[in-house]
């Protein structure tokens, strides 16, 4: 490990400690904002872990997020909380394996289409199950958590996600991911087990996303399918990762922070036109900086020099 990495770690460590202390100093409202932001930073980073280098755009973020939240809603009275989280992670993992095994052998577009409808499928199936099998619609979550407790858990998950992303980026799997994003055939002939690596990364990414949903679930107190399977979550995650740059470690963070604040303001100021503004903003990002703002800054710097 060289000096630069060490400095980076020291700096990140200080930032995490400061962030962890923040709820003791700020109001509950701002803790809530910080909580939501941390949730999206984690979602966007986890999303970019797989979809960034491979360019397999997953539109199923909320399918996993919602499954995580629902698992907590169903199990929170049956078993201790850590076990509930473990179950959520397990269910997310199995779901990702099933989706991955059936689509990742094929061209990317099949994966996109499959994930596009997945959230709706899961939402409808869960609703059907609740109505016809368990005879409940909507569930309560009674866990003794305040906002800051949830925030701390999310912060820890965010740190873990960054560490995973950093480690993968430095490992030979990071190189393989970038290679297969460019040309799967070449990567395969260089000895990369393309399907396996895609599957592995998709499972890791989806499991983290499921956990974000699970940890955030107690925030709602009351949960029903239409709340936790809200497609806006998939959309916001995607737009944040793209704005910052999905190919870089810090890209999703750089995109998530300003966009989250913007969305908070928009949803309060223009509740009825929220998704129109969101859609237009998204189209703008795809047009103006398809590789994200960090890449754009790099380009500008290089352009300035020559």
């Amino acid at each position, binding site marked *: 490990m060289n000096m630069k990495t060490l400095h980076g770690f020291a700096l990140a460590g200080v930032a995490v400690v400061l962030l962890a202390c923040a709820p003791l100093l700020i109001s509950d409202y701002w803790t809530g904002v910080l909580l939501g932001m941390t949730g999206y930073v984690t979602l966007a980073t986890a999303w970019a872990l797989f979809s960034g280098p491979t360019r397999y755009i997953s539109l199923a973020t909320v399918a996993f997020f919602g499954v995580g939240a629902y698992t907590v809603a169903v199990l929170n009275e049956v078993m201790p909380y850590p076990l509930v989280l473990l179950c959520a992670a397990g269910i997310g993992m199995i779901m990702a394996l099933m989706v991955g095994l059936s689509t990742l052998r094929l061209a990317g577009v099949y994966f996109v*289409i499959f994930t596009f409808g997945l959230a709706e499928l899961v939402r409808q199936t869960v609703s059907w199950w609740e109505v016809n099998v368990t005879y409940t619609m909507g569930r309560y979550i009674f866990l003794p958590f305040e906002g800051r407790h949830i925030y701390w858990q999310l912060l820890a998950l965010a740190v873990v996600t960054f560490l995973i992303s950093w480690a993968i980026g430095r490992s030979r799997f990071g190189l393989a991911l970038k290679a297969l994003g460019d040309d799967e055939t070449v990567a395969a002939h260089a000895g990369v087990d393309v399907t396996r690596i895609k599957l592995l990364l998709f499972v890791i990414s989806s499991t983290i996303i499921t956990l974000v949903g699970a940890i955030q679930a107690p925030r709602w107190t009351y949960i029903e399918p239409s709340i936790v399977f809200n497609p806006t979550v998939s959309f916001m995650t995607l737009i944040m990762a793209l704005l910052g740059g999905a190919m870089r470690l810090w890209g999703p963070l750089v995109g998530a922070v300003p966009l989250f604040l913007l969305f908070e303001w928009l949803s309060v100021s223009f509740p009825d036109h929220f998704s129109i503004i969101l859609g237009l903003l998204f189209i703008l990002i795809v047009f103006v900086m398809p590789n994200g703002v960090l890449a754009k800054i790099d380009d500008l710097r290089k352009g300035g020099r020559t």
Partner: protein
Amino acid sequence: MLEHVVNGLVLGGTYALVAMGLTIQYGIARIMNLGFGDMIIAACFATYVLFTTFAINPLVALLILVPAGYVVSDLIYRILMKPLVARAPDEGALEVDSILVTFGLLFVIQGVLLALFGGGYASYSFLNTPVNVLGTVVAGNRLLALVLSLAIGGAMVVILFRTRWGMVLRAVALAPKSAPLFGIDTDRAARTAFAIGGAMAATGGVVLSMFQTFTATAGVVFTMKALIVVILGGKGSVPGAIVAGLLLGLVETFVAAYVDPGLTLAAVYAVFLVLLLVRPNGLFGKA
């Protein structure tokens, strides 16, 4: 039993119709349009407004909305898609860009519909008179929907396979790189294809609104079903889309009738999964 077959064919006919539009957009213009279903829903609401507010018959609405769908899609192509086509280094990059932009478009259209009509169910009653077909009773509007789907879909097939113009479009679908060598303006062909797709989405919307309730947020499901039909039939294959559309309509109706109406989407997905595993290139696709 027969009742379900007829209902399945009605639904399937509409699916085939809209999927033809999507397969033309994807196969010829190379745009994977995730906002397609929302265009259908927009047409549903437009028909609804024309009918309830201006007392305009849906058949007349067809004459207004289909050209409107063409023009709007033509504009969308000129403004949003053309720059993407121009900057894409290869087909894969265009696919990714078009997926992203049309995903944004989805939220814009949905947002507009939500702002105008809210999130509730909408429907209107048109030609709801029972008609006797082969011993079963079918609503008149459903029968009309089937006839319209078959007529318009059939006309489309004739245009694509019997006219010079259709041949040009198919040539672009098969060989986008060599088509210009034969003096074909691929840009114009792609734009036309995208616009035709939009016109067919509008047609589908009008037809669908005659016999089904709809909500502002239902677009995703229609896009999904149309996409599955396109893949089922093989990318860019019009006959494939027709067969697959009818098949999907039948599967859905039978699942709704004999299993549970809440599981239709799950059934559709199951069909999709089985197909992906068995025939990834579609029923009519080339290996």
